[in-house]
């Protein structure tokens, strides 16, 4: 009998991807919950992984079907493998409540009573859920002559331009028109000449016929010489440049790496900045990030050094703010940039630095859209000097947000609070 053998392995992969997407949409809330639960315990390295496994519990999508409640009635069940018991014997029930109730005979296996299951999300999906609903507050479009961004806008038809911009349709129409116009005159004359030629031939007028024949040839030649395209035909599309209002932003990341910050505190600070970094790079196409770390002096570093190298020293907090202002004046004029700052510290400061700190902090607050300060304290020591200074500024500057973080698992929730649209600005949390 005829049979076929087909190799299906080369068929396009991911046949079930649309279904997977639909499930993720329906289970959105449950997936979000699972991602956020997971995010509390992520190591810094792991946040950047290509694939994240998450465990969903009860996605609210149990597929209910009419079924019997076997546990509520007396069941007579056939079992296999009875090597021990005789008629009338009594077996104590296993304590886990497993009785002889049989599994349902349906084809579907979805109702097995496990709500929880695990699967993998891609990196972008995972980060998408992580940062959903978060945004940089007060991001304003900055219109500026120095702005480099333009879009092209269609502005009409002109008669000069480069060949790729040629509007073929219009050109063709115009050329058709010109050719028709030129032909009409010549063809009319050609008809006359031919009629006259015939008459002349009939009449036997050699001279006239010869002249007319010559004329006929000339006309035919002229007809053949009408060019397909002439300069007057050609038309080009024209585009103008229209300046784009840009939303440009710069985020200053200020991290305290002084000796008073232990390993744990530095880890918490780094987690916070890692989240911030990922958030900005996945959510915004154009955000500059400036990394400044300080102990008793401040220095601008690159991302590698910021996250991974060790450094220590005394503590002068105002240095990082001073550095920030220097860089800002040099590279990020406030007319064209939205300026943001996020600072992490343990609140400990060189005692005589308080005034300078207050001064520089005030200057920063004048120019930023939003300033987020998180204080990392693994032991509750009461208000630190830095905290008190910022607190006093917070009343006048509602766009200063302050939070305390004690554990690594608190970083993500605090991060979410700081960057939710309702804003953490102006509020304090203890």
């Amino acid at each position, binding site marked *: 009998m005829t049979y076929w053998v087909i190799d299906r392995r080369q068929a396009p992969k991911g046949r079930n991807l649309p279904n997977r997407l639909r499930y993720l949409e329906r*289970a959105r809330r449950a997936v979000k919950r699972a991602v956020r639960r997971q995010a509390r315990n992520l190591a810094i390295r792991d946040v950047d992984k290509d694939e994240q496994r998450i465990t969903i519990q009860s996605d609210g999508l149990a597929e*209910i079907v009419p079924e019997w409640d076997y546990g509520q009635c007396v069941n007579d069940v056939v*079992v296999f*493998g009875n090597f021990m018991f005789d008629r009338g014997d009594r077996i104590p029930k296993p304590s886990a409540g497993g*009785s002889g109730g049989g599994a349902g005979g349906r084809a579907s296996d979805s109702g097995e009573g496990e709500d929880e299951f695990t699967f993998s999300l891609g990196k972008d999906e995972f980060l998408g859920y992580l940062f959903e609903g978060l945004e940089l507050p007060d991001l304003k479009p900055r219109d500026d002559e120095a702005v480099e961004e333009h879009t092209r806008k269609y502005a009409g038809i002109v008669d000069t331009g480069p060949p790729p911009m040629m509007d073929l349709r219009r050109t063709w129409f115009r050329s058709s028109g010109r050719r028709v116009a030129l032909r009409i005159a010549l063809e009319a004359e050609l008809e006359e000449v031919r009629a006259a030629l015939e008459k002349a031939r009939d009449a036997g007028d050699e001279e006239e016929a010869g002249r007319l024949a010559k004329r006929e040839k000339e006309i035919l030649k002229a007809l053949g010489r009408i060019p397909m395209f002439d300069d007057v035909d050609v038309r080009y599309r024209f585009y103008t440049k229209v300046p784009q209002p840009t939303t440009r932003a710069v985020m200053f990341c200020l991290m305290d790496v002084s000796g008073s910050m232990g390993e744990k505190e530095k880890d918490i600070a780094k987690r916070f900045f890692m989240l911030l970094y990922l958030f900005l790079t996945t959510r915004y196409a154009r955000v500059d990030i400036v990394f400044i770390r300080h102990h008793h002096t401040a220095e601008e570093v690159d991302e590698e050094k910021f996250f991974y190298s060790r450094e220590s020293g005394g503590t002068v907090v105002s240095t990082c703010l001073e550095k920030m202002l220097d860089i800002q004046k040099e590279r990020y004029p406030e007319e064209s940039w939205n300026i943001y700052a996020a600072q992490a510290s343990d609140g400990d400061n060189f005692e005589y630095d308080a005034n300078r700190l207050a001064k520089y902090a005030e200057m920063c607050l004048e120019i930023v859209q939003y300033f987020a300060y998180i204080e990392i304290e693994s032991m509750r020591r009461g208000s630190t000097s830095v905290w008190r200074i910022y607190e006093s500024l917070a009343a006048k500057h509602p766009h200063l947000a302050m939070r305390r973080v004690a554990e690594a698992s608190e970083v993500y929730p605090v991060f979410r609070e700081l960057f939710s649209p309702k804003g953490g600005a102006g509020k304090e949390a203890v």
Partner: protein
Amino acid sequence: MRSGTSKRPFFEGPSWSFEKICEAMELCEEINDRELGLPLRRNQIEIVNAEQMADAYASFGLPVMYRHWSIGKSFLKTWDKYCRGKMNLAYEMILNSDPCISYLMETNTMAMQLAVIAHACIGHNAFFTNNWLFKTRTQPDFIIDYLLYARNYIEWAEEKYGQRAVERTIDWAHVLRYVSVDKFQRRRGRDEGVDVDSKQKPETSDEMEAMLRRIKRAGESRGVNPEKSNEEEEEETGYSPPGVREIRESSWILDSPEENILYYIEKNSPSLEPWQREIVRIVRLVWAYMYPQVLTKVANEGTATWVERYITNRLREEDLIDNGTWLEILHSITDVIFQPELTTHGPRWGAHINPYALGYAILADVERMCKTPDEEDARWFPDLVGSDWRKVLLHLISDFDDQSLVYEYLGPKVMRKFRMAILCDDPNSEEIVVREIADDQGYDKIRKTLAARYDYEFSVPDLSVIGAKMKGDRSLYLRYTVRGGRKMTKSSLEGALHALWRLWGYPVFIEAVDAETGKTVERFGCGT
């Protein structure tokens, strides 16, 4: 085709190739033609990778299916389990279609490919081709076309009416699909034919208009002529007006009771849009296609496993496969018919009956009784003794479902072999009582109880529509039977009511009626 005096194994080593697969197919067919004589359909073998097999799992094995989140969820679960090594995907999967489509895993060894070909391409194929349930209820040459139509229709509806609306309609229909079967095949009328030539169902075709008119009319008065007397009326129209009788709430009838709930909803729901009706119909028809497979798991797998073993043995006897291959296949067969035991694994696992094990055992037992019966067999199955095993095999394949196969042919030797017993589990007691064991006294009870296990109603409540007050508040009434105190779970009752209310659009009631007393045990409503 192989012929000639000296035979040698037609392959060696673990790796398969397309030539070897073709040869395996031909050899298996040859043995079937020569010795078993089972009518078959043409086979289409498809080699797939693991992801494609997981795909198949997620969508009932259908190569084409409409898009739905439940399929995505099922796929994710399966795929993750497989990738973490917690679950093995089957070696094969086969579709009841014409030609029969089988999926073979690319990771199988050649020995397994051979086993699978014997199992699926001959065994399952023979079952689908000859079994009466499949012959009368499915159209295998048509199913793929219908699925394509269904998928395209749903895509079209999603674009036109929005994905959310379509998805919700499918969700509600899914809740009710297992209770939407025709337990007995019956004629449904003209509109049961499926029109797949039109790319999408037009919103108001003639049939649709007729249906809508009928629903509207049902809600209006009957149009009985008050001038004529009852006798005249009856003579003219053949319709006799109902007499006055005591009304019990549950006897408002629109049509006769309808066990196929989605069918009833599709034809009679006052509030569904035409496109929603078509979706309800699609869900119903896809399940109707799968329904026979649910009823014949034991018989089908038993047949396929028996055929696999038979063909493999014959190939070994003729030296067409070597010892290593034969042992590998036997090993796999032994694995697949493994049956957990009460005393070793506990009551829960003892009650978990492996359909492969049971089915294979019954078939092997009947074969034995035909060929080498003993005195007990002659007592139990006198008709089988001395019968032509080929004819009996075809009879077993063709004329039974699981319930009837167990009822008719479960013999004492099989019951003893598996040490069957009946346990009584009373939720109010702390002990399980052993009611019957596999001895002369217990055989009959065991056979009947095990057969009842394979009744559809054992797994799925017999929820049926009994009527609707179309002239009143359009409420819908359903009923199911309570046997031995077994009721529906509260959550599934609520889920069913909710889905019904969504699809019907008016209040819905479900009552539970006790089988013995006929009394209503409980009644719930939704949307009241």
